[in-house]
């Protein structure tokens, strides 16, 4: 039985300038113990979907279940299964870290929870911050408290909405070590992120959203092997010729161009030579999740992987 189930979820906003469909018939399931990634560009509907799961928003049609409980009609049971780390860095300025966690624990009917709170503080590197007021914490420390707050009632399903946006390397590592440990202990994790290397490293299965629709849904390994092409990577100090630029991904000086086989590699190199663009630090590598993501997002319609991939 799946632990989270989205069934034909549609969300429409009716504004003065017509209606806007944020989510269009989204259906997929997450299995117990999975580390599941939800990817998509800004505005694809990721946060809207998480909000409906969390009860912060309501679907125009369709339903969502957590642990078999409907998030609207059985919201109390459903929310006890969910630990949500919100995207925004919010806090209550009246309380210390420990007070914040005790209060949150109380809302879930766990008034005496200090052992677990101590463990959370220690695991998230907050052990010496318990008595500080939330206002005294740096942004990164506040983010850790948000994670602790989401986990204070030991939810079986942990939802992280862009948890590492604007977060330093140390916190990212602390966070992923801790979340991976919880995942190994059996917690289900649903992650949305912009950092595709994180999703590739952590998620067993990935769904990609584009303009409110699921355009890919598969095991991460299958998505990667589905994009079997290799990538030609090099550095360049001048502009690419226009025909190459159309298929390239350029990050600063770094250029990546898909090249399926040796013939294509040769063709690209020949074109560069003709154009008088000598590539530096040339290497040939396998496509990563970012390549898959861009291929799917820029492609028309659904990727082959999305068809029949519902688990």
């Amino acid at each position, binding site marked *: 039985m799946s*632990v989270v189930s989205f069934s034909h979820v549609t969300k429409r906003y009716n504004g003065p300038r017509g209606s806007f469909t944020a989510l269009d018939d989204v259906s997929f399931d997450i299995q*117990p*113990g999975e580390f599941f990634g939800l990817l998509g560009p800004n505005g694809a509907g990721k946060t809207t979907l998480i*909000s409906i799961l*969390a*009860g*912060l*928003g*309501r679907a125009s049609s369709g339903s969502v279940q957590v*642990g078999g409980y409907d998030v609207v009609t059985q*919201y*109390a*049971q459903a*929310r*006890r*299964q*969910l630990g*949500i780390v*919100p995207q*925004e860095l*919010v*806090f*209550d*300025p*009246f*309380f210390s870290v420990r*007070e914040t966690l005790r*209060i*949150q*624990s*109380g*809302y*879930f*009917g*766990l*008034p005496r929870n200090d052992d677990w709170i101590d463990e959370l503080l220690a695991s998230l590197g907050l052990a010496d911050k318990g008595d500080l007021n939330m206002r005294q914490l740096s942004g990164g420390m506040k983010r850790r408290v948000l994670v602790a*707050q*989401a986990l204070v*009632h*030991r*939810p*079986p399903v942990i939802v992280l909405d862009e948890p590492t946006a604007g977060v330093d390397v140390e916190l990212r590592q602390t966070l992923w070590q801790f979340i991976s440990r919880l995942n190994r*202990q*059996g*917690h289900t994790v649903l992650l949305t992120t912009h950092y595709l290397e994180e999703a590739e490293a952590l998620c067993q299965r990935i769904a990609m959203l584009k303009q409110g629709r699921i355009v890919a849904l598969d095991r991460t390994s299958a998505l990667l092997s589905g994009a079997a092409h290799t990538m030609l990577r090099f550095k360049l100090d001048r502009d690419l010729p226009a025909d190459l630029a159309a298929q390239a991904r350029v990050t600063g000086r770094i250029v990546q161009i898909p090249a399926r086989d040796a013939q294509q590699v040769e063709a690209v190199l020949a074109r560069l030579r003709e154009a008088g663009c000598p590539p530096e630090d040339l290497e040939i590598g396998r496509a990563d999740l970012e390549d898959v993501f861009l291929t799917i997002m820029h492609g028309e319609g659904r990727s082959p992987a999305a068809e029949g991939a519902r688990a």
Partner: protein
Amino acid sequence: MNPSVPHVPLARPQPLDGTLPLLRKEILRFWKVAFQTIAAPVLTALLYLLIFGHVLQDHVKVYDRIGYTTFLIPGLVMMSVLQNAFANSSSSLIQSKITGNIVFLLLTPLSHWAWYLAYVGASVARGLAVGLGVLLVTSWFGAPPLQQPLWILVFALLGGGLLGTLGLIAGLWAEKFDQLAAFQNFLIVPMTFLAGVFYSVHSLPPFWQAASHLNPFFYLVDGFRHGFFGVSDVSPWLSLGVVGTAFVAVSAIALALLKSGYKLRS
């Protein structure tokens, strides 16, 4: 599901689960800034008493054998209860909404009853704390008798409950501090000032007497004052009926708004 996942004890959720932690948090919230939330309104009421009492003591006779300063005290106490009960729930909600930390409540299993009881309960607590402070400080200038303490308690609780509930509704409705301030300054403050805090409505011309009787806050002040002096403009039972009905009506609205997620869940 993997058996090693530590489970929340999944007893069937009860509608009042989590009410006490939320109530406690709401009380702590104002208690931590008690200088602003309790001491300041007590001082304001004291200033009203000193100024109005000094100016009017020898000019206004409301009931026989009761000096104006003594007459004024219960009204000031009730006015403080009402304004602070309103301020508590409304400012707590709007602050949480604007800073975004309301999300920590929205993610919990708390029912609309739990929200209602906690926010209104904390408002009543703050209203009573300020009211008691005003009573203690002002009594030095002419302690009113406590003829029927049960009426005092009933109207204090109902006043705090009614205004705490109105504050809850205003806090849900308002999207910025400006709107909340308008609700407070153009509705709550005039209605409390015109409820007979500073005068007996019997001293008004007939039109304004009738108008005062349309103001539900008048019955709160009048019934409350009856508890002290044993005399009032209308029967305390009438006041109880009017105030009780108003309280039930606004509570039903507040509960319906909370249940629907009005301006909380999109």
